[in-house]
């Protein structure tokens, strides 16, 4: 009897003392681990793993349990099935990951129904965050880099005319639309607009680029899904000698993902992109991030802009767990807690817009150069602070709903 009394007293003391109940937060990670775009999934997954390994103690006494599932091909259906089951069967409290926009779009009604928050770590179609109040995005919208690039290209790079080339799927059109809006507003003229085939197969880029070269624009704005496409673009651009012919290559950061940049060779030098991350960004958080990354994955492995967003995503989730003291079963509270969340991450200062649940972040204009140590890197040409998603600000198309 004495023992029981003692136990009861201890329990009472714990509750009265306000010591937190140790909760286990279940997080469902949905990323493409297999298939043609597996490398994108792995770039983010590595950042997730690294963050969890280093910061698990930050949320003590709470713990996180990660359940990983394959997002599969960008059909929406596969991701929807596994993510729904993560909610119904594995009872996860927070979903994250999602590289492909269709996956997030398909999932949106389920999130609203289940009241489960989804913290997007990549999917970039602008209007996704409008589809459900339970979606927050830590990565970017296509408009983040593309819209400011329009003005920058006209004013600073000296593009009076530009040709557009994009992979023929919605993010591609989204990105080129955004660039066009910014570029024409600044006074530039867009000539050719060329779709580059499907997002799955890397096409032979040469005939497309040859056509643009013949049209002799000042600049060529290219959007492709970061991955094998990026290297293909750079090779074709270099082989055709387009830079010598006076056609500058510009685009969003997808053109020069850091983990493929070293393979691109001299052809990449002089390319100017707009984006939120490069390994060469000069800030303390990025230096620490890089150090940990190299320590964990080797010196030849580089994080890229997706990894940086993945790192911040997990950071935001951990901070929210801390803020809510582990009680994250109410999805509305989780999203509420995330609104206005801000940090100094590898990308610099990022904030979640309380109105749109989308990210606010700096955009850097970056030029590829050969660094002193012989490796390829980027030089920052200019920075636009705290860029919001212009698509939603201007209420363009679906962004307005």
């Amino acid at each position: 009897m004495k023992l029981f009394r003692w136990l009861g007293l201890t329990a009472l003391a714990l509750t009265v003392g306000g010591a937190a109940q140790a909760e286990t937060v279940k997080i469902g990670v949905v990323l493409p681990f297999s298939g043609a775009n597996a490398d994108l999934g792995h770039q983010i997954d590595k950042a997730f793993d690294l963050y969890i390994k280093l910061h698990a103690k930050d949320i003590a006494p709470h713990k996180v349990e990660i359940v990983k599932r394959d997002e599969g091909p960008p059909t929406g259906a596969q991701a929807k099935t596994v993510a729904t089951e993560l909610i119904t069967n594995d009872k996860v409290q927070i979903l994250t990951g999602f590289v492909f926009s269709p996956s997030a779009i398909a999932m949106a009604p389920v999130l609203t129904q289940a009241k489960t928050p989804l913290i997007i770590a990549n999917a970039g179609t602008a209007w996704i965050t409008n589809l459900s109040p339970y979606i927050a995005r830590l990565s970017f919208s296509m408009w983040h880099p593309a819209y400011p690039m329009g003005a920058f290209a006209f004013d600073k790079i000296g593009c009076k005319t530009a040709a557009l080339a994009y992979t023929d799927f919605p993010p591609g059109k989204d990105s080129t639309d955004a660039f066009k809006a910014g570029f024409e507003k600044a006074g530039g003229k867009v000539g050719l607009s060329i779709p580059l085939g499907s997002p799955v197969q890397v096409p032979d880029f040469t005939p497309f680029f040859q056509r643009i070269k013949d049209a002799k624009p000042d600049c060529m704005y290219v959007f492709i899904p970061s991955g094998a496409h990026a290297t293909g673009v750079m090779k074709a651009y270099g082989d055709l000698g387009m830079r010598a012919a006076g056609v500058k290559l510009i685009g969003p950061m997808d053109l020069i993902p850091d983990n493929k940049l070293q393979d691109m060779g001299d052809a990449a030098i002089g390319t100017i992109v707009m984006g939120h991350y490069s390994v060469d960004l000069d800030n303390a958080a990025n230096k620490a991030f890089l150090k940990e990354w190299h320590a964990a994955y080797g010196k030849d492995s580089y994080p890229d802009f997706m990894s940086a967003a993945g790192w911040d995503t997990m950071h935001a989730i951990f901070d929210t767990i801390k803020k809510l003291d582990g009680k994250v079963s109410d999805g509305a509270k989780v999203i509420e807690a995330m609104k206005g969340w801000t940090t100094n991450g590898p990308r610099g200062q990022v904030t979640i817009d309380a109105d749109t649940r989308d990210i606010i972040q700096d955009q850097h204009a970056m030029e590829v150069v050969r660094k002193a140590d012989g490796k390829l890197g980027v030089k920052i040409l200019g920075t636009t602070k705290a860029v919001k998603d212009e698509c939603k600000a201007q209420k363009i198309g679906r962004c307005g709903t």
Partner: protein
Amino acid sequence: MAGNDISSGPGNAGRAQARHEAAEFLLRRHRFRPAEALPWLIAIAAFFVFPDRMTFGSQVLVMILFAISLDLILGYAGIVTLGHAAFFGVGAYTVGLASARLGWTEPISGLFAAAIMAALAGFISGWFLLRYRGLTLLMLTLATAIMILETGNFRSDITGGYDGMPGLVFQPVLGMFEYDLYGRTNYLYALAVLAVVFFFVRRIVYSPFGQALTGIRENVRRMHAIGSPVHRRLVTVYTIAAAIAGVAGALFTQTNAYVTLTVFDFDTSAKVLVMLILGGTGRLYGAFIGAAVYLILEDHLSKLSPTFWQFGIGILLLVTVLFARRGILGVIEDLGRFRSWKGRIRMVPGRIVWSNVQWKGIGMAAFDGALIGLAVGFAANVGRTNLLWSWFVTEPLSVLAWTAAGAALVAAINIGYLVYAERSATGSTPR
């Protein structure tokens, strides 16, 4: 034999007799066997045992339905196609577009609309394409499906392109059953549709029309020779199969409340083909087993290892081909038959004659084993060395050990198999 009666029968009496016998034969085959209840019982039991997994469950049912439609043309009429996704996609987009653009959200009438549209597509394409066979037909069907996909992408203002049509809304089934988060309504709805379509297909298969299709599969020339309208029959069954694939596609859209252009992909056609062959073609229930086994295994393996699950699927396909030539259902049938053989197999203790043939076989097995051992050893050691292939150079002893172990193991298995085969197979097995 019925055939003999027809040719030799002198008058109407003989012919009527033959017809009667043929009808009897068909009816006998059409009769339900108790085992046929099994898949349905399992499907219903699954609803109660795994109430939280019905989202996945309804996807399995949709794929089963799709595989059945393929079985109708592949298994019964012998039409090999790599473009069946075209009809799946047409059905999927019919209900999708109807809901998003026309506000037609009633699900069951949507299924009929999808069936009609897909049947139309099947009829038109079948009319042109079914004159061809083999690789030509494969490539033509494949190209047709991809051309539809490209057209859809070209007009992505209507179709939504690769981002698809978000937020599709459908009325509750029969106006009563709301779609729930757990997918339970979806599951029962899909199961009901599957049951209706299945018994329709079963009727077709065991009808004289179905027999004519089997005839075409087995020997086209002969069917031409006896005056069977081959092309017409092929187009008919192709149209029916397309309609069913359209229903499956419509169910796919309705259960997901979403559709993208990837439903037209080569992957969709190839996957359903693999599922069907895996289960066994020309048996109807092969579609059940194939789709269920494939998807459940994929689900399990991709939980275990989201990155490497394809390896397991590959092994499953390999093992099926090498040891179960007629699909999983074929194995089950063989096992059923095995019981009746047992009494007839004589176990004669044989003496193994170690001729050159055996030694050569063991040698080849050892060589393969060495290669396998080398590969496994490499896989086991790849993380430890900095250069990918440097294990081969830096640790020759370890390389040797792995190789020798692999060779010894596989050679031992081979010898064991030889002894076993000599012991048991000396008697005659009725094959």
